[in-house]
């Protein structure tokens, strides 16, 4: 299962980011979310959703082989990661995230909490 995005339905409420931080870091901190919401205003007036599609580009470019795909979930090995951020720069979806509290980037683990809470079904399950 993968998480699909319907950007035209996204309202920019960021509840997905909030639940992501609560679920993964036990914090009220939407800045620690493995999903990005970026407004495109004043024109054309829409939100861009940045979320991992498991395309594996990050695995390909990681110089320390710290990133793997384990049964459809992209994982970063903290011991191997040297925080070079090549994965952040190279991700075609802008879906590798950082926060100053952490010494390694983080990526969506497809837990689906954001799908459950999204009020407009802008996020949904797809095969």
């Amino acid at each position, binding site marked *: 299962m993968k998480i699909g995005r319907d950007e035209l339905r996204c*309202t920019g*409420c960021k509840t997905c980011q909030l639940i992501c931080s609560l679920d993964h870091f036990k914090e*009220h901190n939407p800045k620690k979310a493995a999903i990005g919401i970026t407004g495109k205003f004043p024109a054309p007036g829409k939100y861009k959703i940045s979320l991992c599609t498991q395309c594996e580009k990050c695995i390909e470019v990681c110089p320390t082989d710290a990133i793997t795909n384990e049964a459809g979930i992209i994982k970063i090995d903290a011991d191997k990661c040297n925080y070079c951020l090549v994965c952040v720069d190279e991700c075609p979806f802008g879906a590798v995230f950082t926060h100053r509290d952490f010494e390694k980037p983080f990526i969506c683990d497809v837990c689906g909490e954001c799908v459950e809470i999204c009020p407009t079904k802008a996020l949904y399950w797809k095969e």
Partner: protein
Amino acid sequence: MTGGYGGSILRINLTDKKVVKEPTPDDLIRDYIGARGFIIRTLFKELAPGTDPLGPDAKFIMAAGPLTGLFVPSSGKIQTGGKSPLTGGYGEANSGGHFPEELKLAGYDMIILDGQSEKPCYIVIDDDEVKIEDAGELWGKGSFAVEETLKKNLGEDFQIASIGPAGEKLVKIACITHDFGRQAGRTGLGAVLGSKKVKAICLRGTKAIPVHDLEGLMKVGRRMYEQCFTNPAFELWQTYGTSAVVNWANRIGAFPTRNFRGGYFEQFTNISGPRMRKDIVVINKACYSCAMCCGKYSHAKTDKYDVYVEGPEYETTAMIGGDCALGNIKDVAYGNHLCDDYGIDTISGGSIIAFAIECFEKGIITEKDTGGLVLKFGDPESVFSLIKMIAMREGIGDVLAEGSKAAAEHFGADSIKFAMQVKGLEQSGYESRRAPAMLLSYMTSDIGAQHRPSWAVTHDIATGRDSAEGKAGKVIELQHTRPLFDTLGVCRLPWIEMQVPVADYAEAYRKATGIDYSEQDLISISERIWNLTRMFWVREVPGFGRASDIPPARVYEEKLTGGSTDGGILEREKIEAMLDDYYNLRGWTNDGIPTEQKLKELGLDWVNLP
């Protein structure tokens, strides 16, 4: 540190550029909860009586509440406050968007600005770091260009609150714009920011908001979201937002039309929610953590203009649409865009324009006053021109920029009778001659004629639209409950429209803070806050009292025309009787002043009576 709070108050003096960060005091948290409570307590204690609202000693405050930014539906709300340059009394404006949670994520509960910068500037708050930058070329620019530029320069993850040219020119209905269309609209606080020469406040926060019992809060939060998702009106609200109210308000004859001469606009279907959705809406746009997404982002394009705007919200459609008789949703949206970009409140703006048009129709002002402009109801050019003239203080716009009350005093000829305001603040979008509780709400609202603290039209429909009896009690109940949301720092709409119970908010508050207040305890604090805002008026406005609560004479001297409320009027005796009831139930004198005993009962014995 108490859970639910950012933990700090940030003070910035624009004169000497001194920045002070102090812990949010425990007694402030305990006695005033947050946002609205923090603002009035700060103003009352720290502002010297009689301070010029646009002078260097005035304060400009933005404050969040203990639930702002947390996992409860629609927790992206902030209060902006100060002494109002429009009314001279308590000034407050509420705004959504994404500035509210950002303030908490940066670790603050409140920002207090005072002093006056010599040169135009903008403030950048990046977590703990605060910088005051030269505004340079941004000064003079419209709100949208300012936000776009600052986001480009600082980063998309900064939230920007800015003023347009109207705020710079100290227009007394100037607002603060944020998130390309969210406004802290009412009471002219944009002019306070302008007087300090602050073009924008830019904010980024990356810290967690601490809470007392995370698991407990998430449990109640999930229940509150679920209540929204399963409410039968959820989809309707998502589709139309507040614009859904347009059809209803016309059906019941409460839609302000042609400067409140009637409660029914014959072209309302052209500016209704469904029409708006079909003709101009691009996407739904929500404030932080909101499931209901009442914000509608629109694109209005004709051969004369091509603009994007968030809205129009119901209030804007009522005041620029019905009240100025514009029967085309694109024109209403364009008027909305102009107001947002120049930085004026659409409610006051629409009302003042409608007032000016009526003055012109009656010959009180002429082409000589307007610089050749012929003012007509239903004429988009009249509206668009006046928005610009007010915002830029051009020609007659300079008089109108002072608000409809001051303009009426300037024009004379009894025009004060149809300047639709109370305490100097223009009435928002509900015609109330056949809604006595709603009228009493406008009369006694603590910022002037605003619907936010009490909205009672459905109560009037349920209990008798011409009956004044028993209305005061309901209004008081609403004036304690609705502003509680503005104190907790959340939106009231999930409660009103999705029936999320107040008890859930009280529970969320306890889980977030660990403070064991019951719903009733919170309501009692709300009453304390209400009385303190009243005392601010008593202190600041010479001769303040019963006469300050009387609505414009149109309400009790002129019958409504058109629609289902045709012929409606609310007699002066009924108005006086409602006030008697209201003061009595509140424990105030019959001149509308809280008594010494009442103040003592509310823990306000430190407040001096005149």
